[in-house]
């Protein structure tokens, strides 16, 4: 018992010291709202491009869009000006922010916004918002984004995390503290061999950017990252829809007289099964009820295995084929309109 008391006493001292030092060091006040702090800047590169180019169609999506759709060819085949806002590593949280802060805020409004998505990503608000993804999302978020913070973070926290976020400086500062420890470890040895911080960053950047990955490891890594989209929770459309950014995206599009078209692209990470088919049926029905259009190529037999470069990205030949398929689909939609 005495040993436990010794431990408790020292731990209490550490916690009090941390609670006194950390708020000053990281400029925080307590209690605070749960969720990460956003910086004040909003990147306006897309907004400026929209003002300048006045595109009729804007494409939103991640690397599957960039590697799956040839923008120039799509413009040619549809006879409309097209501008792509495909950001590798983005997901529904960033698409919501781009629609709100870059597209809706521009004085020029496009006729159509095409969201290229895969399977359940539209109703997964916590997907790709943590770690280095957060920095990316934060670039397009304003200082005050209550919907984004609530849906991507607070809704996914358990009561203990919410309490710790509000009242516990050590917990809130954990990412900064961990970065600080990692930085010390990372930059400790290379200078002993004549490689300073810049040299170390350059070396790591080079080796990871140009990494030649073992094929199975690559498949496993993509599979592990994508597995989140196919958990029972994510496949439960009714439970996810109100927690997702879809209702907000539809509202913003309606308010700005923009036609939303959701394009489901095919991927090979998950075999189609009853749960996924039921999810897609519910999603399609919801979007149609809310005046959004859907083009579903998720099970398109024309996009066979040889048109993929990996489990989620199309090859160059696949890109040509998919652009043609998409253009045909859009032309039919526009003609029907």
């Amino acid at each position, binding site marked *: 018992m005495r040993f436990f008391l010794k431990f408790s006493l020292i731990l209490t001292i550490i916690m009090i010291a941390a609670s006194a030092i950390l708020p000053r060091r990281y400029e925080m006040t307590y209690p605070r709202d749960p969720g990460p702090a956003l910086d004040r800047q909003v990147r306006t590169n897309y907004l400026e491009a929209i003002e300048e180019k006045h595109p009729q169609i804007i494409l939103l999506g991640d690397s599957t869009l960039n590697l799956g759709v040839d923008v120039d060819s799509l413009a040619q085949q549809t006879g409309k000006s097209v501008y792509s806002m495909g950001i590798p590593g983005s997901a529904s949280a960033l698409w919501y922010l781009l629609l709100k802060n870059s597209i809706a805020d521009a004085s020029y409004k496009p006729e159509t916004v095409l969201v290229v998505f895969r399977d359940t990503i539209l109703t997964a608000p916590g997907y790709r918002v943590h770690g280095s993804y957060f920095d990316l999302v934060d670039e397009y978020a304003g200082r005050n984004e209550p919907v984004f913070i609530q849906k991507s973070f607070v809704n996914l926290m358990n009561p203990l995390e919410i309490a710790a976020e509000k009242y516990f400086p050590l917990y809130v500062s*954990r990412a900064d503290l961990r970065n600080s420890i990692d930085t010390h470890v990372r930059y400790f040895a290379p200078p002993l061999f004549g490689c300073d911080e810049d040299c170390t960053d350059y070396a790591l950047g080079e080796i990871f950017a140009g990494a030649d990955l073992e094929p199975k490891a690559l498949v496993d890594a993509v599979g592990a990252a994508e597995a989140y989209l196919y958990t029972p929770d994510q496949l439960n459309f009714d439970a996810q829809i109100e927690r997702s950014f879809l209702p907000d995206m539809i509202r913003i599009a309606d308010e700005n007289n923009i036609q939303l078209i959701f394009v489901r692209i095919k991927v090979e990470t998950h075999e189609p099964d009853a749960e996924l088919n039921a999810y897609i049926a519910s999603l399609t029905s919801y979007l149609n009820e809310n005046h959004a259009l859907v083009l579903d190529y998720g099970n398109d037999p024309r996009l066979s295995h040889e048109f993929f470069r990996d489990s989620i990205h199309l090859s160059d030949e696949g890109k040509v084929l998919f652009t043609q398929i998409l253009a045909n689909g859009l032309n039919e939609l526009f003609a029907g309109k």
Partner: protein
Amino acid sequence: MAFTSYDFLLFFLIVLVLYWGVRERRWQNLILLAASYYFYGSVQVWYAVMLGASTTADFFLARGMAAYPDRKRLVMGLSLIVNLGVLAFFKYFDFFSGSVASFLNTLGFSADELLLKIVLPAGLSFFTLKKLGYMIDVSRGTLKPTHTFVDFALYVSYFPQIVAGPIERPQKLLPQIEAPRTWQAEFFYKAWPLLVMGFFKKLVIANSVQVLVNRVFSFSDPSGFLLLSGALGYTLQILADFSAYTDLSRAVSFLLGFNTSENFHQPYLSLTPTDFWNRWHISLSTWLRDYVFFPVRRMALRYKLNENLAMSIPPLVTMFISGLWHGAGLNFVIWGLYYGVLITAYQLAGIRGDWKPSSKLKLFFAWLLMFSFIVFGWMIFRAPSMTWLLHILLNSPFIPTHNEFILGLITMTMALAYSLPLLLKHLIDQYTNESWAQAAFYAIAAALIVVYINSASSDFIYFQF
């Protein structure tokens, strides 16, 4: 439901309150049994169904052995077939699923979806060994079968151990299950240091090191130097990860009033391969020693094999089975055989498990040699495939490019930096007991857990076996 998850915290608090609330042993066991099946079935309901069916079969087979001693061999054989058959089916299913699926497809059945959904139930390897140990002991007459189904079912499914052990022997756990238990403050005082160390090793050490280790082992053609740095990182990661699971399992057991086995005893301080296996995954090593090594050795002696063969075959067979137990991949089998060869070589050289050289210099070199063997062993174990490993060992240059050198250096620094707390704890434990220094270590570790806590922490490595 990982021990480090919020779901487990809620689950365990509810179980703990109910468990100590009822006071009566039978009800306590029933609550633990229900909790264990909920814990196990929460991943897949059919896991719990399969566990229940195989437990029921073994309970009655053991009773049958006691009731009909003249049919012992037949009953034991049946149990072996059922248990090993189920284990082999799930463990090696991946090897055959492709061909089975195409065969069924040629017959016109759409088998892909069904076959793809068959995955190894977590913990199957662990509770199968628990049941087999029980059955073998009953057949040998060294253990009387329990009369109470709930007690036996709880022994098999006991949730702190079901997913990744320790593989508790019936002689240790069953008497505790059968004895009355009342709450004592002592349980908490034994549990909290294990909880702190378990969370610290998993969240702070293992999860931090794994990022770079996974990177290194995912390159298609790393240099030898980079591979070595990754292997060193993995050497730390797997110890921290697996021993963290054991610490948390033991802590949870203490809070339930059970004293369960230790699984690790400073394995990286071993001087010989036998010494290593006496310190690493102790519950598996002792199981293999008692149920595989000794019987094979007795058989070798009975058939009067020559001395060298009699000395070589038992460790080779035992470690081969150990490799197979870990998985169907060729690297696991080779990893097992590698240790079999090492143990044999040391024994043929006259170096026994308890060998300790007299001079400090010899001691250092003996440790360094054994540590190098261990790191190489983990290299085989962690490699994505044997083809990959052989290609690098035989074709890739050891000297790295500048960028690889920097990455390798950082990986090694990280492994070293994150192993320092374990080294420090070892020293503090050796020279002090319940001192302020020890208390300060635990307090700093607890604070660091808060810093490193992450709701998206990865699973424990040994869940996959």
